[in-house]
């Protein structure tokens, strides 16, 4: 038998028109699910992006609270001799405070009541290669530095991970729940529309329609609903991402958030594919289950 694409498409479109309310429900459900799923993708992509850019950081800071400038000099001198090191800068208490004030010059409240003694003097070490940061941190620990007196990328990454892993797992959990909910809601919407038309389906079977002939328009219907719902959600996600990156650039200039962290065409394709998959699988399963009963 020839597969008549246009016949099935037209049948599906007629179904959508006849069950407009049901279709809107299914499309809305898909939209919300894919939106949540997409926002989950965005958040984890940006976290990965931030971690990636921290990893590219080539600086290690060694803080020396209460150290004299001679002690600073001595450390700087020693570190300069290490092969991984490109450049060493000593930062005194006054310089550290000045840098802080400069960094937050828009928010003077932050430092109005601070004394420069809270800022310990430090030695800032620029490395030749970011991958050597851990080795250098290790060597500094052998020199008597504790974890608390060091700042290096892996430490930042570990701290970031310990906070964000909860966020990411929460998002994955929510996404999974929403995906399950959307499969259920969509197959339920389709089951209702099948139930409303069960007499018709019985008649179709009586005049000799095969299961797949009856099922195909419903699967097309599910596909169209998935496509529309997921397509709208995917564009919303990409748009939200654009707004977010723009906002972050203006309001969080020190957090390395980049529009490169999210591959927009990839996100669009994945989200639409997931939505279409949900629509097709949901409709296929519910029609098949119904057809088995008659």
């Amino acid at each position, binding site marked *: *038998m*020839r597969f*008549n694409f246009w*016949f099935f498409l037209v049948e599906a479109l*007629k179904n959508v028109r*006849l069950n407009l309310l049901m279709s809107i429900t299914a499309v809305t459900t898909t939209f919300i699910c894919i939106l949540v799923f997409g926002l989950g993708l965005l958040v984890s992509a940006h976290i990965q992006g931030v971690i990636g850019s921290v990893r590219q950081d080539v600086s290690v800071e060694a803080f020396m609270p209460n150290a004299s400038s001679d002690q600073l000099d001595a450390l700087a001198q020693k570190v300069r001799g290490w092969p991984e090191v490109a450049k060493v800068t000593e930062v005194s208490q006054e310089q550290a405070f000045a840098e802080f004030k400069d960094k937050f010059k828009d928010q003077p409240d932050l430092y109005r009541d601070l004394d420069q003694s809270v800022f310990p003097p430090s030695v800032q070490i620029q490395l030749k290669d970011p991958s050597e940061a851990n080795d250098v941190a290790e060597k500094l620990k052998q020199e008597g530095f504790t974890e608390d007196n060091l700042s290096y990328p892996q430490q930042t990454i570990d701290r970031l991970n310990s906070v964000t892993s909860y966020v990411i797992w929460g998002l994955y959990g929510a996404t999974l729940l929403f995906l399950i909910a959307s499969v259920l809601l969509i197959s339920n919407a389709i089951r209702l529309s099948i139930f409303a038309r069960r007499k*018709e389906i019985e*008649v*179709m*079977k*009586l*005049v*000799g*329609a*095969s*299961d797949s*002939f009856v099922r195909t328009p419903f699967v097309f219907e599910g596909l169209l609903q998935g496509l529309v719902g997921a397509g709208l959600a995917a564009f919303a996600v990409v748009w939200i991402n654009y707004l977010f990156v723009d906002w972050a650039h203006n309001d969080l200039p020190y957090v390395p958030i980049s529009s490169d962290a999210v591959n927009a065409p990839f996100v669009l394709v994945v989200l639409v594919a997931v939505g279409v998959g949900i629509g097709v699988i949901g409709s296929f399963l519910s029609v098949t289950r119904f057809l088995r009963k008659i």
Partner: protein
Amino acid sequence: MIRFNNVTKVYGNDTVALERVNLEINAGEFVFLVGASGSGKSTMVRLILKEMEPSAGSIYVNGTKLSSVPRRRIPRLRRDIGCVFQDFKLLPNKTAAENVAYAMEVTGQRRRTIRTKVPQILDLVGLSGKMGKYPEQLSGGEQQRVSIARAFVSQPPILVADEPTGNLDPNTSVGIMQLLHRINRIGTTVLVATHDREMVDVMRKRVVALEDGRIVRDKVRGAYADEV
């Protein structure tokens, strides 16, 4: 063409709808199946369409033993049996022409064939002016003509009708019967289950009478009731 071999059908545990029915209908015959309400006529029709399985015995349609037809081959079986029902069973969201076309679409026929065949068959049943009307815009008799057109459009070797005139007035019924008669004359085997005494008596065809699930009479050129 249709053969019942010792067929028994029991619904649930205790409703015996058919009991040891033996019947042979040959190709090209026109047969009336008569009997009181509840005597088992619809049950026989549904068995022929393999809407359900007999409790015992076997049924042959067009040379095929129905119990050996797997579920997925039922559609093909039904394409060889046109069926007409008391309640017409038209698709409400399709026009007269689309309803007839649907029976051709399920068999994967070409659009061009469908476009030429549908108006011809609707013309044949006298509905050429109502092709674009939906079932709810048609009278009962007109709907029944559409359903006969749909049953017959693929020219199946067998046509079964379960009380095709049950919802129609006598004059309309005559028209429907004439239509079935014409279909039979071009070689189709026709089985009509009916209460319509007058019609059966006028047509003088083979009459098979059921009573409480048993065949009590089978007469060529018979009447609805026993002639004294």
